[in-house]
């Protein structure tokens, strides 16, 4: 095993005409680890997920996956590479083809990537059903016959059917009832442990991210503002946005720190300097003029805030 990360994203940007959805995102995920992206809606998390898989073409940046730059692959090579990187979507009602039986849904990925014979496809499908705790009789049923949680489990089984090295999970439980969320999250974790899959996990739910991820990046208006190991992000958040986000989460910490006011600004008009300054409780003059850079604050934790400079100088 090399020490090279499974996925290394650098300077990733995406503009839709004037809208800068994702700006200069850089991170890497070591083999077998789970990397979390958190942020409010509109922070560019989902776009980042799609950029990583090149479902959306990046405006700029590199995506090194298994040592190859995905951005440089031809459409055919990219399609073949998809065998090693699969995605789980937020909406389990929309991501499955309603006119395809579960048998076809679970064997199709193997079929289109030419993995094994039809008999092996079926055996894999049966094994996957067992792994998601569903009876074999589910094979001949159609997506509409399942509940949301069941469908999401089928979507997970489909993502695993090519034995991928990377799974990108875009809000995999936010469309599900809270009672079913835990089931699906536990399943994801168990299967990840079993298969040694690397995961990029996206959610707006801080508790879910805390449960799932080894390392976490907090996104705001298309940028990563803080990044680090889970314990440090939750234990000692350095960026005012992360602090506010944690304070807004129901339950622990609520009320102690300043809560977030207002809404995320439009990506059409990103504020000058620090993008967060319009909502930051501790913003000062420098924040409007100069864009804060990512700086290392030890223990693998990084944040982009001028306050960290001031603290250092003081």
């Amino acid at each position, binding site marked *: 095993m090399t020490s090279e990360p499974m996925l290394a994203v650098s300077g990733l940007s995406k503009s839709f005409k004037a809208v800068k959805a994702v700006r200069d995102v850089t991170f890497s995920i070591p083999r077998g680890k789970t990397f979390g992206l958190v942020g409010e809606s509109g922070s560019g998390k989902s776009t980042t997920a799609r950029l990583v898989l090149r479902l959306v073409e990046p405006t700029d940046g590199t995506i090194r996956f298994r040592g190859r730059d995905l951005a440089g692959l031809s459409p055919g090579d990219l399609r073949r590479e998809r065998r090693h990187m699969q995605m789980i979507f937020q909406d389990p009602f929309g991501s499955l083809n309603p006119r395809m039986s579960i048998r076809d849904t679970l064997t199709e990925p193997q079929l289109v990537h030419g993995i094994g014979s039809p008999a092996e496809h079926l055996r894999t499908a049966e094994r996957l059903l067992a792994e998601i705790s569903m*009876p074999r009789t589910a094979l001949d049923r159609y997506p509409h016959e399942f509940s949301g949680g069941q469908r999401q489990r089928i979507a997970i089984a489909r993502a695993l059917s090519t034995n991928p090295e990377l799974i990108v999970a875009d809000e995999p439980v936010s469309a599900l009832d809270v009672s079913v969320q835990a089931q699906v999250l536990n399943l994801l974790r168990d299967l990840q442990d079993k298969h040694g899959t690397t995961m990029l996990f996206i959610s707006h739910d801080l508790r879910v991210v805390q449960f799932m991820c080894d390392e976490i990046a907090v996104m705001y208006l298309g940028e990563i503002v803080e990044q680090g190991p889970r314990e440090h992000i939750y234990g000692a958040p350095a960026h005012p946005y992360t602090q506010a986000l944690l304070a807004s989460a129901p339950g622990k910490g609520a009320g102690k720190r300043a809560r977030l006011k207002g809404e995320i600004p439009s990506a059409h008009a990103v504020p000058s300097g620090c993008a967060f300054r319009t909502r930051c409780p501790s913003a000062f003059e420098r924040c409007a003029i100069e864009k804060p850079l990512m700086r290392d604050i030890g223990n693998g934790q990084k944040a982009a805030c001028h306050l960290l400079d001031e603290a250092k100088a003081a």
Partner: protein
Amino acid sequence: MSIIQATSPDRLPGGDEESFVTTNKTVWQRLLTNPTAMTSVVMLVVLGLSAILAPVLAPGNPLKVSPADRFIAPGAEHFFGTDNLGRDMFDMVLHGGRTSLFVGLVVTVISMSIAVALGAISGFYRHVDVVLMRLVDGLMAFPGIVLATAAAGILGPSMTTVITALSIVLIAPSLRIVRGQVLVVRELQMIEAARSVGVPTLRLFTRYILPAVSSPILVQASFIFSAAVLGEAGLSFIGVGIGPKELSWGNALTEARNYIAQAPWIVLFPGLALMLTILALNLLGDSLRDILDPRLARRR
């Protein structure tokens, strides 16, 4: 029907005891219990069979002229009476139906095939769309009757001419419908999911996009069928159709119109056959639209 096991909500149950949501009525069940749909299907089957079995049901030569038997009123001898040349109207309607329905069927198959193929491409590839849609606009601006008349003038009146002209004229509206549906379907998450799985484009069309747009295509096909039958009758009536030597409902009406006062049955029976066909096809199209619409399905 709860799927959550009360004992261990966070962990999945062992397997077989899990229940599934019950299914709704299938499309076939809804079709069989829809009175309008079934009426129209029965009418079409009767019309279709009488056309197919015309040589058996009406074995005489439908074009045989016998001046002595002119204008005989409908009766036991001649079910539908005879026309101005003493031809048996029952024979003519049955044999005419062969032509009319055949033209309708062939035109539907040809124009719908082209419309589905081009419409799917146009809806999916936006740069092709720009060019193709301008061509369709042009085609739609051109009156069909003029095109058909011109075609008949150049190629001479024949069944091939009628089929070609009607097929071309009827492509545009269907193409627009297919394109519009594909435009909606291509934005569905299942398409993005399929791409992320690595499904090749051709399979994306055959397994994802076309099945998703099959309902409106089926509905449109029934309307195109009726438009084609009516179109053939219209073209034959104004004399740029399949030519006077062939039998069709439209041709029968052309000659009959001179004798309406004298022998109304000459007009009545081909006209009735034509009307019933169009009515059945339109009713079928309407009820299919209801049956195949998933939002309406739940109500039944």
